[in-house]
């Protein structure tokens, strides 16, 4: 492996593999005793993807406003690239046109990643249970961690959902 590492022709690829493997070994070695520390680091900087899917995004915006200020709980305002995100808040209705895009966004996010289903539409289809173009909940598309009910949920409810997610992450395995 070291030979590969110093071989100039295959170096970049081999380096990536090596670093990846080293990382895996490291996490496995220190993972068990340091679960708590790793998760503690994760819960205080959850980066949500900026993916608005329906009207609940109004309340998600309100949650970042000065009155509710979700940032004090470690949920950072939704900005930046999805390659750096580890949280996806599905804000409301997922239509048949949106569902493949939602999955595509989720697949591009790095592990570990968490999903919050926000609003009645994301949980069961809500008011649009009999619409021809709305999915009855996003369970079939994404593995959901936390359900936040409401139509739309108040910002307080969303904050509570985020804090429940943090509780959940604390009890998860580190790696």
């Amino acid at each position, binding site marked *: 492996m070291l030979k590969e590492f110093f071989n100039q022709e295959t170096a970049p690829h081999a380096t990536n593999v090596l670093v990846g493997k080293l990382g895996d070994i490291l996490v496995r070695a220190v993972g068990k005793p340091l679960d708590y520390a790793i998760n503690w680091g994760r819960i205080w900087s959850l980066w949500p993807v900026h993916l608005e899917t329906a009207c609940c995004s109004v309340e998600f915006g309100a949650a970042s406003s000065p009155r509710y200020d979700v940032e004090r709980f470690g949920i950072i305002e939704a900005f930046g690239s999805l390659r750096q995100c580890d949280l996806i808040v599905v804000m409301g209705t997922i239509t048949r046109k949106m569902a493949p895009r939602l999955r595509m966004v989720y697949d591009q996010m790095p592990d570990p990643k968490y999903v919050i289903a926000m609003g009645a539409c994301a949980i069961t289809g809500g008011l649009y249970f009999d619409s021809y173009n709305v999915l009855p909940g996003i369970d079939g598309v994404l593995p959901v961690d936390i359900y936040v009910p409401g139509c739309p949920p*108040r910002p307080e409810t969303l904050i509570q959902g985020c804090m429940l997610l943090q509780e959940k992450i604390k009890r998860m395995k580190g790696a």
Partner: protein
Amino acid sequence: MTTQLPPGIQLENIDDRIMTLNVGPQHPGSGHMRLIIKVDGDYIVSCDPDPGYVHRGEEKMAEYRNYIQNIPHLERPVIHDSSNILYPYCLAVEELLGIEVPERAKYIRVIAAELNRCIYILYWLAIYGIFLGHSTMFMWPAGDRELFIDLLEAMSGARVTHAYLVPGGVRNDLPANFEERCLRQVDYFEKRLKEYQAVFYKNPILISRTEGTGILSRTDAIRLGTTGSVLRASGVNFDIRKKEPYDVYENLDFEPVVMKEGDSYARSYVPYLEMFESCRIIRDAIRKMPKSGSVRTKLKPNPKGGNDEVYKRVESGRGALGYYIVSNNRPEPYRVKISVGSFRNLICMPYLLKGELLGNMPAVYWSLNYWPVEADR
């Protein structure tokens, strides 16, 4: 083509240099829609909007529910402007069923609609600010918005989805001391609005990004059938509250805001000035409102419309909002068509973005006052 291209920029007959970009649906700057943009270097060659990511079939659903059951789902397309999207529905159903609305209810509706218009414009302004990279302009309107949300919460009991306007009046009377509280908030808000001017509208960065970009001339605005602030920023004095006054708007004192420039700056400035007019209307309505009386005419259980059709429209935060309802002697409407301002302004997008810099895309896009959920219905 409205904009004059800089010399040396060709838009036609270049094949291998043109690149296609998908802006959205996951992109901080487009919302829940996709713009298929072709660029040559930094200049946009063509733009093809692809809406429909939130198409929920409201109009089809409305055919299976009766006139009262339709209220909650019809306000969902614009939950932060829910009074204004229910307003034409209530007017249309009232005409269809022949219901008279009590005088006090008309004033309360106007107050609710204007408060909601402020809430909508403030949310839009917050988003417009943040996508131009101005974080203060996200925080201030998003914070001030809560004052009006509090007022409407006291009136209706819900934070954003009020369902406050119902056919026949409003759902319940105003809470105690509402007038006093509302006037105090409005006074404070007007003082606060003047600060926006200094921090946002006189900001040189904002001016350099918005002034002279995406110019829509008066002729084009009329030809494309635009509406709302887009239309009024292009110099057409058309406000349905003045031209076809509904409820009590003819008794109230206000002036529609009209600007001549037609660029992104004017389109973002018109809604701001409209908030001052909304404050004027609220003050005037509170002064002229009857102090007591009924606020709701009771409907028969499961009312039926005749064999008739009706088209009613109001001025919402995004422009004209019309409901076309066809009924056929049934408790459910036969066909409901919602003609929304966002969908009508969609046609501007390929038109205005062509020839713009890619960096100016958010400035032009958000100045169109476009709310995708409403456009898709």
